[in-house]
């Protein structure tokens, strides 16, 4: 294989990178022995690769490493502060929700802690038939209530009507509703 100068120039980069097949490499080496121009191009191109590949080629600005380190550490610190912030916010939320739930449960359980007499009364069924006596503004569960003195002067009506007319439940016979 014989190569001319133009062919050598097109392959000279691959030649330096050892990326040409053995036949072409041998042909180029033969060419370099005879051609000073191509040898100069080869030497110069190699110098370019060598010089630019040297890490001293690029000077970093004074203090660059310190600034990089500081910025990275600042970022890590920032993340940590954000993380701590989230932790505090989460703890506060848990505290408030817990307090609310505790207060709510305490309120709802209070009835169970009260004595029988201190508990709220059950509502009187509106259709419950009760007995009212003319002697007072009290209604009773039935004429058998010992708090009715004159059992002959009684009448029945629904609890709803009794309440509307201003009667109150008897504390004796209707204590479950008082």
């Amino acid at each position, binding site marked *: 294989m014989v190569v001319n100068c133009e062919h050598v120039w097109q392959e000279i980069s691959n030649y330096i990178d050892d990326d040409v097949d053995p036949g072409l490499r041998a042909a180029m080496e033969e060419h370099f022995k005879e051609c000073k121009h191509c040898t100069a*191009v080869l030497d110069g191109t190699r110098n370019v690769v060598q010089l630019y590949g040297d890490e001293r080629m*690029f000077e970093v600005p004074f203090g660059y490493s310190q600034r990089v380190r500081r910025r*990275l*550490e600042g970022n890590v610190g920032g993340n940590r502060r954000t993380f701590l912030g989230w932790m505090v916010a989460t703890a506060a939320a848990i505290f408030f929700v817990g307090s609310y739930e505790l207060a709510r449960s305490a309120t709802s359980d209070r009835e169970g802690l009260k004595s029988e007499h201190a508990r709220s009364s059950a509502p009187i069924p509106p259709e419950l038939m009760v007995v009212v006596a003319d002697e007072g503004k009290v209604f009773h569960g039935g004429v058998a209530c010992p708090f009715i003195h004159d059992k002959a002067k009684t009448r029945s009506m629904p609890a709803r009507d009794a309440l509307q007319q201003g009667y109150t439940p008897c504390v004796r016979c209707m204590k479950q509703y008082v």
Partner: protein
Amino acid sequence: MPAQPGPPLGDQTQLGESDSRNEAQLIQRVRSGEHELFYELIRPYERRVYAASFAILRNPANAEDAAQEALLKALKHIRQFRAESKFSTWLIQIAVNEARMRRRKENSDRTEPIANDANEQGEYKPRDFADWREIPSEVLERKEVREKLTGALASLGQIYREVFVLRDIQQLSIEETSKTLGISTASVKTRLLRARLMLRDMLAPGLGGVWSGKLSFAKGEKPW
């Protein structure tokens, strides 16, 4: 409770087997929430991240800001690193994406030397055949030489500069460069060839003649 720092990594970017294990452990610890260790993890690559940003943005302040932002993004998305590529390659990809995004926002393409971007498929012929002798890498200690190299790179069209930066400065493979830039491996090779030859054309007359003459290599003196 502060995390216990792991063993420090060396500054070299080519990690040995032991360093690779340390790096894998560090990655795991950072992913598990020990974010304090992230700087230890990226320390060997912070210069490369800056260099990738600078090569694209061509401005030290913008490059540093982009590099820092890229590292923050890497920290934020560390759990997405699947070890399918090297950690350094993953970092560089993030840095390149960040720098490209900023470049688009700043619309700095207006200042691109578009002549270099044109006619990508056409053959590039070297313009200068000056004999550029091998020169010691110590010339990079000289600020004016570094400035010449940086200036030459900055004058390349964006598509060539990106490929050259990833392949020859960041030492990514052709495949990694292709994946990072989202172009075919054939395009990577074509652009890389042209970038190298253009840089050689720009630098050979100076480093091969005028500038290296000032170095007095022939006299055995060390001007730096």
